[in-house]
Structure formats: structure tokens, C-alpha cells
């Protein structure tokens, strides 16, 4: 493995080092990267012919385009200025646990396939192992820069899904402890059953709605366009962790509502009809759906943008003062009936239920709305009136 040259990427302010290494050297590093990094994209199925062709080309000694790796900033061992790093120090950082593949994952999988194919043919395998590869490594990228480079490099055949991009952004929270809150991914196969448990995907969607002040959150091209904002957010985030605040605040709200509605449960209703459609059987089920989380995110984002609220601390204080504003059961049924009406008539049920929740939370936390401010019953009714007028 040797360093060929070093260039500076001024857009993401990072040093890019070009290496030449043998396929053997690369495969040893890459094997662990693909195994251990849960956020590395998975193998793409269905393009087998292209990759078969590539395997054959590799056997003939073809040179493949450089594979692009990155070292995450937290793995840089507090190096303040990578530009001044000596070659030995750079080489010492080239370890699987420090690296992520930005571009070339599918090529890497193809290499593994070929190595596997040749395992009983030592001569050919050694020939392949000796073949050189060009590898670029970005030194010390933060999450935003990783995402930015992944997106801009990723213009080929297998683009990354929006969900994947968003999950990369917030991946740290999956393992982080947030007071009384657990986030689960779909692959965890964990049934969300109690207050404090959330689907990671739904929470990230809700947080994006907060950032974008829109129930639908950010789309792929906007994500690229908004990279500047995300960088600003990353800076802001260092002093006040917005994602953490967002989910803690929301969880406080659910706990408060559950207490206010005295742990209401549809299945204990006197005229309980198992076949009746209800949006959720209890407060927890109603408010952990993505429609509610995104509605909350968008509403708080809008209120903050309009300077009606200052920050999440203000909302947390307000949550303590929320009242039901009428008969508990009647109010919860008002909410379920509104959601049911939307289901019956809306062109896109999920979207319009998000819009409704957006109105609901905006009414609830907008101090200029005297009938519904911190009054959940009033907010439920006013939100539906607004919904009918505006939609």
C-alpha cells in the first residue's frame, strides 16, 4: 500500500488521499468494513449480469475505477489538521474500524465473489490478489460531509434511498441513551408496545418535518439542496442537540396526554366493537404513528419559524399546563372520528392525517389561539374545522 498523492476537497473541506494497494490488501480491509458497519448499504440484487461481466474483467486484470473510502472525524484521533499529517500517520489510520465505503460498495462485493470463486484455484487467486487498485480516502469527514459525498458520488446505477440517507444522519441516536426512550429499526423486529418506544424511521421523519416545517419532510433533491442548512444544523446541534430535544419533548407530550386521558383504552369501552376501525386503541398507539410525529414536527417547526415559540424548553413547560377541556371520552372519540372521516374522504389518507395532526399541534401550542391553546379538546375540534376549510 502506498500513497500516490494528496488533494484538498474544498467543498467539504477535507483531505483526499489517493492510495495504490493490492486487491489482497484492500479485500482484507473491506471485508471488515462491510461486515461491521450497519449503515453501509446492503448488496444490490438484480444487477447480476453487470457484476458477472465485471468479475470476468477482473480475472483478465482490468483496472476498475477508484473506490472511495472515508475516515469519520471521530476516528481521526483528534488530529486537528490532516493536511499536515505525515504519510506514516495516515497509513496507520487505514484500518477497517476507521473506514466507511462511500463509493464502490457493489464493486467490492463483486471482488469478494471472485475471491470466493477462486478459493480452490490458488494460482489464479494469487494473480488476482497481486493486482493493483486505486483507493481514495477522505480524511476526517463528519456525518454531513459523508452524506454529501455519498449522494454526489452516488449517481450510478444504485442510488441510496432517502430513508438510508436520513438514517445515516441520525444513526448515532440508535445506540445513544435518551432518557426513557428507545428507538428501534424495522430490522430489529421489535413490536412497539409502550410509551417511550418508537420506530426510528418515524422519529427521523418527524424530525425532518420539524426541520422542513412540512408534514412531508425533505425529499431527495431537497436533501442535496439543503445540505448547507444541514451543515448549519450540525453546528447548532453541537450546543443544543435538537434531535434529542425533539424526541424527549414529544415523549413528554405523550406521557402527559396518557395521564390526562387516564390511560384510555378502546378495548375497555362499554360498546367495544372489535370490527370497528379506530386509528389507535390508546393514546400511545394514536400518537406514535408517523402521521402524529410528522404533524408535531411540522407544527413546532412552523411555530418556531413564526417566533410564536422560542425553543423546546418552552414547549416542555407548556406541556405541563395542558388540560383536556371537556369530557375525556367524548374528546378522544372526537379525535378518532375526525381521523376516521379523513380516512373515508381523503385522496391520500396518510398525507391528510399528517396535515390534520399538524393543525392539531399548531392549535395546541399557539398562544394566540385562545380557544385551543393548551386545551386538547379545543385543539382537536379547531383543527378539524381548519382542515375542512383548508383542504
Amino acid at each position, binding site marked *: 500500500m502506498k500513497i500516490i498523492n494528496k488533494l484538498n476537497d474544498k467543498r467539504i473541506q477535507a483531505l483526499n488521499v489517493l492510495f495504490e494497494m493490492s486487491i489482497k490488501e484492500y479485500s482484507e480491509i473491506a471485508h471488515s468494513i462491510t461486515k461491521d458497519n450497519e449503515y453501509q448499504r446492503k448488496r444490490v440484487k438484480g444487477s447480476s*449480469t*453487470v457484476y458477472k461481466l465485471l468479475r470476468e474483467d477482473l480475472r483478465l486484470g482490468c483496472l476498475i475505477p477508484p473506490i472511495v473510502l472515508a475516515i469519520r472525524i471521530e476516528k481521526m484521533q483528534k488530529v486537528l489538521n490532516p493536511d499536515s499529517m505525515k504519510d506514516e500517520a495516515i497509513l496507520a489510520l487505514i484500518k477497517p474500524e476507521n473506514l466507511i465505503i462511500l463509493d464502490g460498495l457493489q464493486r467490492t462485493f463483486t471482488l469478494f465473489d471472485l475471491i470466493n470463486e477462486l478459493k480452490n484455484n490458488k494460482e489464479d487467486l494469487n494473480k488476482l490478489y497481486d493486482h493493483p487498485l486505486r483507493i481514495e480516502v477522505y480524511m476526517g469527514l463528519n456525518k454531513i460531509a459523508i452524506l454529501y459525498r455519498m449522494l454526489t458520488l452516488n449517481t450510478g446505477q444504485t442510488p441510496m434511498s432517502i430513508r438510508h440517507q436520513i438514517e445515516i444522519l441520525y444513526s448515532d441516536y440508535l445506540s445513544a441513551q435518551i432518557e426513557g426512550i428507545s428507538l428501534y429499526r424495522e430490522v430489529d423486529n421489535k413490536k412497539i408496545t409502550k410509551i417511550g418506544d418508537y420506530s426510528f424511521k418515524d422519529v427521523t421523519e418527524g424530525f425532518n418535518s420539524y426541520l422542513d416545517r412540512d408534514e*412531508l419532510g*425533505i425529499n431527495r433533491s431537497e436533501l442535496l439542496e439543503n445540505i448547507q442548512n444541514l451543515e448549519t444544523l450540525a453546528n447548532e446541534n453541537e450546543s443544543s442537540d435538537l434531535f434529542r430535544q425533539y424526541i424527549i419533548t414529544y415523549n413528554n407530550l405523550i406521557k402527559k396526554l396518557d395521564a390526562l386521558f387516564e390511560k384510555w383504552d378502546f378495548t375497555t369501552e362499554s360498546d367495544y366493537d372489535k370490527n370497528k*376501525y379506530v386509528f389507535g386503541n390508546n393514546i400511545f398507539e394514536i400518537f406514535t404513528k408517523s402521521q402524529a410525529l410528522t404533524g408535531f414536527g411540522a407544527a413546532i417547526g412552523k411555530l418556531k419559524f413564526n417566533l410564536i415559540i422560542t425553543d423546546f424548553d418552552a414547549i416542555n413547560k407548556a406541556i405541563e399546563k395542558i388540560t383536556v377541556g371537556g369530557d375525556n371520552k367524548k374528546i378522544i372519540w372526537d379525535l378518532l372520528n375526525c381521523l376516521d372521516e379523513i380516512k373515508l374522504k381523503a*385522496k391520500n*389518507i*396518510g398525507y391528510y392525517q399528517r396535515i390534520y395532526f399538524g393543525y392539531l399541534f399548531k392549535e395546541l401550542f399557539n398562544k394566540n389561539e385562545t380557544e385551543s391553546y393548551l386545551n386538547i379538546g379545543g385543539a382537536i375540534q379547531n383543527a378539524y374545522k381548519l382542515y375542512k376549510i383548508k383542504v
Partner: protein
Amino acid sequence: MLYLGYDPEYRKRLDKIDLMKDESKFKVYNSYDTLRSITVNYVLPIESDYKIEDYKIYLLYSTDMSENRIYQVIEKSLKKRIGWIFPINALNSTLHTESNNPHFLKYAFVAFQLLLLNQLKDTQIEVGNNYNITGLKRENSLFEDNLIIFIVNKALVKGLNFNLDYYLPSLYLYNYFYQYIENYNNFDIYKGCKRVVIEKLPNILISESYLYELFKELIFEKHYLVRFYLLYQVVELLIEKILNNEILKLANQLKEKEIFTREFKDKITNFEPEDKRIGKLFNEYSNKGNNIIRKNFIEKCNNFLTNMNRYNKDIKNIEKKLYSIRNFIVHDYRSIPKDKINVLGDVISSFEYLCIDLLLNYKEL
């Protein structure tokens, strides 16, 4: 059709589809170019019992695109289900009431694939992208969300000589149209229905090409006067048929010497006037119509005539109401004040339904 490539000469139609079950996606590609493909997300539970070649889809439009408007379609003469009708958004959501119904899901699974393979409008797509069938701003979507999908089981309609054109009047009653229209002033009798029961045009009317022209194009005319004339042609068509049929019947009676020349002449004179034949249409040739449609028409006519100070309480039956309206529109359209024109719009909307009702119930004696 969905195409890959921008050069019209070299672009390739996507004509093959494979399910990637683990990922709940379809891979769509050209059968001679397996290297390039797109993937399309499928969010509904997979029920893959049915084969696409056994089904056919038709694309329609509606002014009511509620995601939950998902119905079984019953063919009236067969008295059984021949397929389903639903808005395209129902294929991209698990929030509607049929999202766990295996009967619907089997059809949805097939419709989804047929839609991808048989899109009527040419659509340019980007290789390698992941799409949704429809979607909001955050998603790459392949189709506009204003389509109604009508999927039919070919085997079930085999004996019917099934042709969508024959069913356009009947589908119109349920707010399903051949063309895209916005804000149409429809009479909403379809609301609250549990199933869509479609009915073929009577065989005696199938060769009337004007009817297809009407339901595919002319009925969407916006000017009330023009629309009335175009619709009134249905009445003209039917009463002409009545005249011919009545003359034939009399000629037969004459031939069989059941009547004689003078009576023959008197009888013809008796039913030849337009109002008399309209009476026969309502009372003899198409007398088993839908009461709601007919009552609604009378109500709208009364409202209009009252607004025009022409209401005559002695004229009660529907044929006379129609004739009064016809006379007013033909002779006095210019006297309708601008601010009352919407009242005429209501009459014409209910007249559309009446025309369909007359057509579907028409039979010669």
C-alpha cells in the same frame, strides 16, 4: 409505456417485471436489456396467486379520488364480481380499509404490474432509480395520482364480448369517467354504495356510435346550452327508434289485416309528435328506471322553472317536465339571467343521469 433512454429511436420499452419479494419491490426492465432496470416499491402485503396475463386493466378518471373508494365490480347480467375498481393511490398505501383484504390484494398485485407494463402515456424514467407508483413530493413517482384503475378478470367476462365502451354510461353513474375533468357538477347518487354494479348498454343500442362519442368526449363539454343539445340527442335517438318500431308494428298489423289504412294513418298521427313519443319512452320503452334519478330530475326542473317564473303546478309527469325544459332551452335560453345559469347547470347534471337511465333501461316491445 415506460421507456428507458431519451432518444426516441433507441429507447427501450420496459416490458418485463420481476418481484423482489425480500425487498417488497418490483424490478422493471426491457427483455433484451437486462443490464438496466428500475425498481418500484410495493407497500401492500404480497398476494401473488394471480397471473397478470389473466387480467386486463382500464384507466378511468373521477372527481372523487378518495383513497378509500375501493369497490368490487359486479356485472349486472352475470350477477357476479368481475373485478375491482379503485383509485391509483390505493396501490401505494396500507391505510385504506381493503389493505388487509386478500381478495382485493390479489387483484392489486396484478393491477400494479399491469400498470407498470401498460402505462398509456409515454413516460421517461431514469435508469437505476427507485420509484413509487404514485406519491407526494418526497417520492419519485411514476404516475399522476388522478387515475382510477378498473381491473377485470378476463375469464369471467369471456362470454360477454366485454368492451369497456359498452359500460361507459353505467360507470358514469358512479362518477367514473373516460376523460379527466375537474370540479364537475355531478349528482352524487354513487355515494355510500358498497359495490359498483355495471350494466351493459342494451344490445339494440350497441351499434349507435354516437353514444360512444358522447361518453368519451362530448359529455365533457362545459357550455350548458351545448351540453344540453348533445345530451338531448340521446332522447332524439331513442324516440326515433320508437317511431320506427311503432311503424313496423303497425305495418305488420296492416299486413296481417288486423288494422286497416285509415286506422293505420290515425295511429301514426297519434304518436308521431315528439311529445307523444317522449311519453312512450318514459311510460313504455324505458319505464323501469331509477326512481331517485327521475325524482331528482323533476326536482331540479321545478327549481329551474320556478326561478324562471315558468313553473306550472299542473305539469307533474316527467315527460312533460322534460318537454317544458327542452322548449325553454331551445326557444328562450337567451332570457336566463347570468346569475341563474347555475340553476340550469343543476338541471343538466341531473339530465345526464336521466339520459343514462333511459339508455340502460330501453327495450323495444
